[in-house]
């Protein structure tokens, strides 16, 4: 085959691989063409071909990189989530209620952590399902690298005596192994201190802009799921404080210390960005003009974008 035809043939192949999403194969073929052309002097439109191939190589490499960066477990639409659950509802038909549990666990395994935790939280109310639901909630948090939060949750459960004595050992053993395998030095037995462990913040105080307001979804209570916007009354580095007027009773009940807010939008005079925060305190103000209003403090843990 003469060189011109060979190049044409290779090019056709590379383009097909590209269109099928076989990007590595396409890239390799483009590179062979590049090699062929470079090693030959007397070829028509040599510079033009080289330029075009270089562009193809660049574009294909970019596509590859982009695909590599795709999050492995994105949130999917609701109909897909219910299907994930259904796929597992035949799990162990003997055990009562286990299909709901099987479904929630399937969601967790598919990486639909938020939805899974939401459902597992509901299952905590059933005596028969509590232990498994709790284990899976802890698993979900650890999978998302919120081991600190998992620890504080576990401590809260123990403090509130969520588990009967015969289950305490089981969950303790499970959780110990879980955080061991996650690495890091987490102590789950500092129960005496009874402090909730706050997640570490990833940010330095001086990295943070002045924030004028925040918007987030209420995590619990009567207004669960509602979006609210609050003005910041005081900020010290990564700690921000806001006032909730006493008449907003429902709002006050919908957020508590220890809540993790996974999507906060921060408004600053110069930019809007989003991130995660941890409710570090909520107190009734006992003096001054704002007496009986509530002061809420959030620690910013992470800035996402």
């Amino acid at each position, binding site marked *: 085959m003469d060189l011109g035809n060979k190049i044409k043939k290779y090019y056709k*192949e590379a383009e097909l691989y590209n269109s099928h*999403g076989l990007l590595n194969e396409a890239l390799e073929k483009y590179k062979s063409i590049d090699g062929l052309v470079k090693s030959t002097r007397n070829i028509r439109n040599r510079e033009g071909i080289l330029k075009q191939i270089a562009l193809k190589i660049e574009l294909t490499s970019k*596509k590859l990189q982009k695909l590599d960066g795709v999050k492995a477990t994105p949130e999917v639409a609701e*109909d897909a989530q219910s299907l994930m659950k259904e796929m597992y509802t*035949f799990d162990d038909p003997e055990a009562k209620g286990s299909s709901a549990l099987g479904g929630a666990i399937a969601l967790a395994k598919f990486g639909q952590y938020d939805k899974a935790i939401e459902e597992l939280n509901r299952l905590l109310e059933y005596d028969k399902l509590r232990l498994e639901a709790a284990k899976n909630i802890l698993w979900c948090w650890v999978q998302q690298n919120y081991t600190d939060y998992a620890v504080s949750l576990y401590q809260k459960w123990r403090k509130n005596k969520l588990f009967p004595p015969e289950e305490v050992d089981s969950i303790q053993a499970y959780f110990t192994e879980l955080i061991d395998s996650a690495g890091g030095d987490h102590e789950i037995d500092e129960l005496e201190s009874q402090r909730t462990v706050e997640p570490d913040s990833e940010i330095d105080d001086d990295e943070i802009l002045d924030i004028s307001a925040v918007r987030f979804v209420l995590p619990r209570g009567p207004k669960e799921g509602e979006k609210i916007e609050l003005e910041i009354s005081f900020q010290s580095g990564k700690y921000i404080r806001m006032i909730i007027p006493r008449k907003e009773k429902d709002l006050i009940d919908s957020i508590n210390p220890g809540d993790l807010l996974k999507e906060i939008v921060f408004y600053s005079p110069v930019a809007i960005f989003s991130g995660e925060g941890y409710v570090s305190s909520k107190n009734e103000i006992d003096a001054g003009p704002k007496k009986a209003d509530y002061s809420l403090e959030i620690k910013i843990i992470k800035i996402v974008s």
Partner: protein
Amino acid sequence: MAVINLKNRQIECKLVFYGPGRSGKTTNLEYIHKAFKKQVAGKMISIDTEGDRTLFFDFLPLGLGKIKGCDVRVQLYTVPGQVKYKATRQLVLKGVDGIVFVADSLAVRREKNMVSLKDLHENLLKMGLSIRKIPLVLQYNKRDLEKQGLPVMSLKKMDHELNRQLKVPSFTASALSGEGVGNTLNQALKLTLQSLQNEFKWAQ
């Protein structure tokens, strides 16, 4: 794990399309969705990322009507072919009754076909199933590319490399135009229902 209700005379079974990334599993389902409208019993659900790669699975429910006095429903699933999604493939395989292995005829995908078949074997083993016992058919897809002068493996070679030991029914196909898709599906269903018959004696 099929759901078989002998009293109401209903069967529901699960067929999974397996194979390496980009071999045409989703394209098979899309064609079935389009061409077998009468049998389609619900929405097709596809979850993919950029570049159309399947992320978790595709899903298509079919209703085949009455077969030997039983109302037969089939759930078709595809797995994500990319190597890194092994765990997801395991999840999707759970409860499988029959498998269509979609191999890519492109010569550049020769090894990927073999790796994927091995991956299927391992995943089945983990669930206590054997690739030699489960209803299985092979599909050699993208045959149309041969006519376009692209490097495609010969059927003999593919059969030798993928089916020498398994010796299961194999079909040529061009899923994009639909050629061979119906044949593949029919045979896979036939084997699956037969194997359920042997196990549960559902037919009258």
